[in-house]
């Protein structure tokens, strides 16, 4: 079985995340680059499945700048078998639609039985790419799974929300995305880190995907304006005195917290 995991490089969630106010794009230089933490959970699923099922190949696929090589290698250190990185000048600042089209083209180029994605990235938080890719490839999608069962023919899983749990299944080939409720990812172990450098790693431009470039090279959404987040205003101080109980309650009520 061939499982392709869509790996997104994001600025570290725990660091300061900034937007470039000239371009409106995420400022990837000012913070550490890491694999999106929900994607890591998807990788964990694919790699543990491969460990228990001989003949399974796990491919980490990413569309990013060349600098994302190190991040994608981390997926190989975790245990993915090979990496494919789509790099192209024309993709700089790609929006969700263009990203989905390029990923779909790359997936057709690579071939797959199952595509695994995070349900939404921790930076853009669009949450649309998995559905868009599934639509373009005309395959079923199982969104936001908390648990998964996979066999040669079908994938089943639980889509869990605060109110309901949906049990979903689809025949392969299919797309599935995992949510942050999914099992914790492993740490790349020391041997995995050393083995990662020896694993196959391809860097492809869009011309190599066998698709008409003209339909792939332009974003559809246009940014018209961008502004930085206003600085935080200083908070309200409630001084402990005979009125403080009432003051605090009034503050909470005013802000609809009680």
């Amino acid at each position: 079985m061939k499982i392709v995991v869509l790996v997104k490089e994001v600025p570290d969630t725990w660091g300061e995340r900034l937007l470039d106010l000239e371009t409106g794009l995420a400022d990837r230089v000012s913070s550490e680059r890491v694999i999106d933490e929900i994607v890591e959970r998807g990788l964990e699923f694919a790699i543990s499945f491969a460990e228990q099922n001989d003949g399974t190949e796990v491919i980490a696929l990413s569309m990013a700048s060349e600098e994302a090589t190190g991040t994608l290698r981390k997926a190989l250190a975790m245990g993915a078998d090979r990496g494919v990185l789509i790099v192209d000048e024309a993709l700089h600042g790609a929006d969700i639609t263009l990203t989905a089209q390029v990923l779909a083209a790359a997936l057709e180029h690579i071939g797959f039985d199952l595509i695994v994605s995070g349900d939404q990235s921790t930076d853009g938080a669009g949450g649309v790419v998995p559905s868009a890719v599934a639509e373009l490839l005309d395959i079923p999608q199982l969104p936001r799974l908390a648990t998964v069962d996979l066999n040669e023919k079908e994938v089943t899983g639980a889509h869990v929300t605060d109110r309901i749990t949906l049990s979903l299944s689809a025949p392969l080939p299919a797309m599935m995305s995992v949510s942050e409720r999914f099992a914790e990812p492993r740490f790349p172990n020391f041997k995995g880190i050393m083995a990662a450098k020896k694993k196959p790693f391809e860097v492809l431009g869009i011309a190599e995907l066998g698709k008409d470039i003209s339909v792939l090279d332009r974003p559809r959404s246009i940014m018209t304006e961008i502004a930085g987040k206003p600085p935080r205003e200083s908070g309200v101080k409630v001084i402990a005195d005979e009125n403080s109980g009432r003051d605090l309650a009034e503050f909470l009520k005013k802000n609809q917290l009680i």
Partner: protein
Amino acid sequence: MNMSENSVSQEDFVEILGGLRQFIREKVMPLEREIAEGDAIPESLRSQAKDLGLFGYAIGQEWGGIGLDPVQEAELAIELGYTSLAFRSMFGTNNGIAGQVISGFGTDSQKETWLEGIASGDIVASFALTETGAGSNPSSMRTKAVTTKSGWSISGEKRYITNAPSADVFITFAKVTDDAGKSAVEVFIVPSNSPGVTVGPHDKKMGQAGAWTADVHFDEVAVTEDALVGGKSGVGYRAAMTSLAKGRITIAALAVGQAQRALDESLSYAAIAKQGDDIIGNFQLVQAMLADQQVGVSSGRSLVLDAARNYASGADTRIGPSVAKLYCTEMVGRVADLAVQIHGGAGYIRDYFVEQIYRDVRLLRLYEGTSEIQRLIIGSNLVKQELASN
């Protein structure tokens, strides 16, 4: 330095170190209190440490280890020193004297029997040298090994043996007296399930809760001829002394890691704790303490890495490790003391990690050779060198 194809490239090592740093911060540090209060390493953490490769980072790749060189090992130990020292203690002897003695000087059969299990963490190896009357100086050792028809019989008592309660094998030091009455210390590989081996209850220590030590009794323990490290007389002891010197660099590196943590904890505290309207970090006397801590950490780090480089190249395998161990373990004692002082009353309360550091680091000046023994090694070797050059 001997760079074979089995060595770890600097590029890979940077990632290994980064991965370990992340592991320590995300997986070990949140459990520090649980380790201390439960006096045990949680099984899930042990299993993750095993998966990561921590039981065999200093053992060669041909035996399933990672094969870090001494400088890389020292850098790794600095990272490991940043959290509960009990965590490192869990796999300390596997990478340390047990793994080193067997991989460096063991017979082929000893290597095949033990090394893969030691490197993977399936086997816990413990190092049985210390006795009641023979600590840093093994010449007064009372544990004896006598030859029998099929091998050796070992009798004696060992004290403060780290990981003894969980050990699968003891690398055991015992005195052998030949027919002419001449005695020498030899090293034996003794499985812990050998009849005659009993492990006492674990010691109630001042600190390092979660790392267990205990007495080990050997009562006419029969082992085969193959139990003698290296297969012939004298090999194991020399190997052990060499590995002990390297172990001193590791202890020095752990001290630097703990000192860095004590400094970081002090800084975070000084930046938020207020006296009157000002944070204590703005008081110059507090700044002076932070400065002294930083000087200790920076100089200790340089000294450890320098000692490791000289050990790896063979330029200095005796004096340097002892200098680093002496300086860094004394240094962390002072830095930990300052950390408690900066925290004030809070530093005496168990909710603050510096209270634990203060107790935990006290051991570093005692084991793998006390500070006094390090001074003797440094002083006697300096004089020896001087005399040899005349």
